[in-house]
């Protein structure tokens, strides 16, 4: 347990009558690349959003570096439904906001790219360095934090260099081609100096060659920054080539997990992706 980076305990997320994620538990160890896969609408992004604090799960807990960051349990009528006869049903509620979770060292990217539209590429990354600038309003206004500011700028430049966007640093973020926008999102996440990186469909909309490059790139940054990576992906090539372990979700439920080879051969997974035989 000591090297567990992220742990989800029985996460359930219910939107009205729809159960998007149902009793989902995973463990991600340090320095691993773990993927969550599943058909469209399987609840992958919902699980991500619960982990990063965008909304609290209906029930369940999330631990980050063995620290409880999200914990929620239903009350009243819902409680009877969830707890059943369990008298030890936990009650504690913890719900850190996304900014606090990022401060702990978990950075993410978004499925539908969310860049700061009116800013340049460089400014986008610079904003993310804000996290590590410890200065009050006064010193920021009167530029007493000059050294910190210089360091932040340098750090942002380094990150741009890592993702190979240094040449376009003064262009408007939204004017970049799609693949570069994805890279910029990763650069921005890296600029918060995370211990863990959550990538939400990083290869969406990329062609096979770009996907192969991305796989190479993810492995590279993982080594360089000693990251733990959790990713959601549709592209099987990418997932199979870089993941250490894979969790498969279908209709919110965990249907299989294991190494890429194990998952590939699992009949349940094949059924979920290709549909079951009628007979």
């Amino acid at each position, binding site marked *: 347990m000591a090297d567990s980076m992220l742990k989800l305990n029985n996460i359930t997320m219910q939107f009205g009558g729809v159960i998007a994620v149902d009793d989902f538990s995973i463990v991600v160890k340090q320095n691993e690349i773990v993927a969550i896969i599943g058909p469209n609408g399987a609840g992958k992004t919902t699980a991500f959003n619960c982990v990063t604090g965008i909304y609290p799960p209906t029930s369940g807990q999330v631990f980050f570096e063995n620290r409880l960051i999200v914990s929620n349990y239903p009350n009243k009528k819902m409680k009877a439904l969830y707890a059943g006869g369990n008298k030890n049903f936990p009650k504690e509620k913890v719900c850190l906001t996304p900014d606090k979770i*990022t401060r702990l060292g978990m950075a*993410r990217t978004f499925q539908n790219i*969310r860049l700061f539209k009116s800013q340049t590429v460089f400014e986008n990354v610079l904003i993310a360095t804000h*996290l590590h600038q410890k200065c009050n309003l006064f010193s920021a206004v009167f530029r007493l934090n000059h050294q910190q*500011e210089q360091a932040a700028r340098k750090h942002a430049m380094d990150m741009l260099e890592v993702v190979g966007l240094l040449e376009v640093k003064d262009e408007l973020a939204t004017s970049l081609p799609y693949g570069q926008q994805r890279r910029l999102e990763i650069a921005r996440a890296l600029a918060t100096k995370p211990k863990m990186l959550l990538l939400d469909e990083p290869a969406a909309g990329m062609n096979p060659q770009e996907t192969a490059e991305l796989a190479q790139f993810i492995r590279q940054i993982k080594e360089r920054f000693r990251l733990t990576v959790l990713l959601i992906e549709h592209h099987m090539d990418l997932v199979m080539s870089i993941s250490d372990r894979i969790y498969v979700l279908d209709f919110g439920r965990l249907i299989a997990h294991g190494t890429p080879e194990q998952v590939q051969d699992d009949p349940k997974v094949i059924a979920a992706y290709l549909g079951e035989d009628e007979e």
Partner: protein
Amino acid sequence: MKVFKIILSLLLAIIACLLIFFSINALDLSALLKEIVPLETMQQDAGLEKAVKRINDCLADGNQNRALRSLNRLLDDYPDKVHLDVQTKLDLFFYRNNKVMLTLGVYVLFFSAALAVSAFLKQQKHQTAVLVAILVASLYAGIYIVEDLVGVNSMLMTVLKKGAIYALLAVSMNLLNGFTGLFSLGQAGFMLVGAYTYAIFTIENTSRAQVYQYYQGGLVQFTLPTLVAILLAGLAAAFFAFLIGLPVLRLKSDYLAIATLGFAEIIRAVLQYDGLGRITNGSNLLRKFTTFNTALFPFAVSGICIALIALLIHSTYGRSFKAIRDDEVAAEAMGINLFVYKQLAFVISSFFAGIGGALLAMYQTTVQAAAFTSAMTYEILLIVVIGGMGSISGSILASFLFIASSEWWLRFLDNVTYIGTFKVPFFRSGFRMVVFSVIIMVVVLFYRKGIMGDKEFGLKSLMEPRKGGKRRG
């Protein structure tokens, strides 16, 4: 280039010294008068003697302007009796333009010093700083000289004064609406808090009984220095913003606008409440507080405030504000605490709105809560939109244009005008606002993002391309 700059600065320094020398050594008026009106001619004419005596009396009272006016009249009335040769004419010119020459001299001296310094600076950054210093000095010297030439109460100076105040108000609103993306309509409310706080604490103690005649002379019985009161006005507005922000900033876009608008209306009603009369004077005017006369004062205060806002926007805090505007979810994922930063932007914006309100009170010389309607907020919002959401220089430019056209350039439309015997149709009271509305519509149609968009009119256009130039009013 370096040698050229140094030679130029030396030349300018000599000119400056000459200017200062002449203005300091200008003869004073009583001595000048003895030159212009010789003793024997004066004794021959009783009227002339009386006129000279009047001028001397004015001088004894220390009323220079009146003395000058009397002198002009004397020169007009007795053109053949006065003794005017080149020497006295020159002396008279020096005397009349004493202030302008002194200002010009100091300014040119400053300019030459800046030029000399810039000749030795190698770094681009320092060069820019020198350029900014020169531009700012030009601005203030220019205002001082123009004010002396056209008179404090002329239309030009009125427009400049009001324009400077509105520039601050517009920039403070832009900080919230344009840079942080919070659509707030509470500006008039915060201005009102600022204006009242300022007015209440600077009414002369001797006038309090008169101002608060219906409320036993009021509760506050001390007078604060002007600058302290202005700062207090800002702090009071910021405090209100802090309290209101706690619940209200959890709302989004339109709802936030409605809630802040509601606050502005409530505060206006509360300040007119009879029960608070001993402090706020009920629904009566507050007057006889310290005001300003010269346009330099609002320019100085707005200039400093706008510079502070510009510095803030270009700091790491400003970047976070812009991130929130562009994408709240992503901003939060970058570790920016949404609530804290929204609250911060709201409080800072209101602080400067409060200061702007205090300046507006000084400009109006009286202040009454009933005047701070939501129409005032819309006026400022209009300036912000016309200037460009997210552009400081746009707001400044737009506020001067707005005030100039609404107060001055379009005035003629309100007057019934005849060309020969032909009565120009539509020209009557109120037509100005119709034309004004049409102009605004045209501007919005053709400059959809405002005059400046979200760009800044920077030093970029004056020097080689580089970022970070800020302009002020």
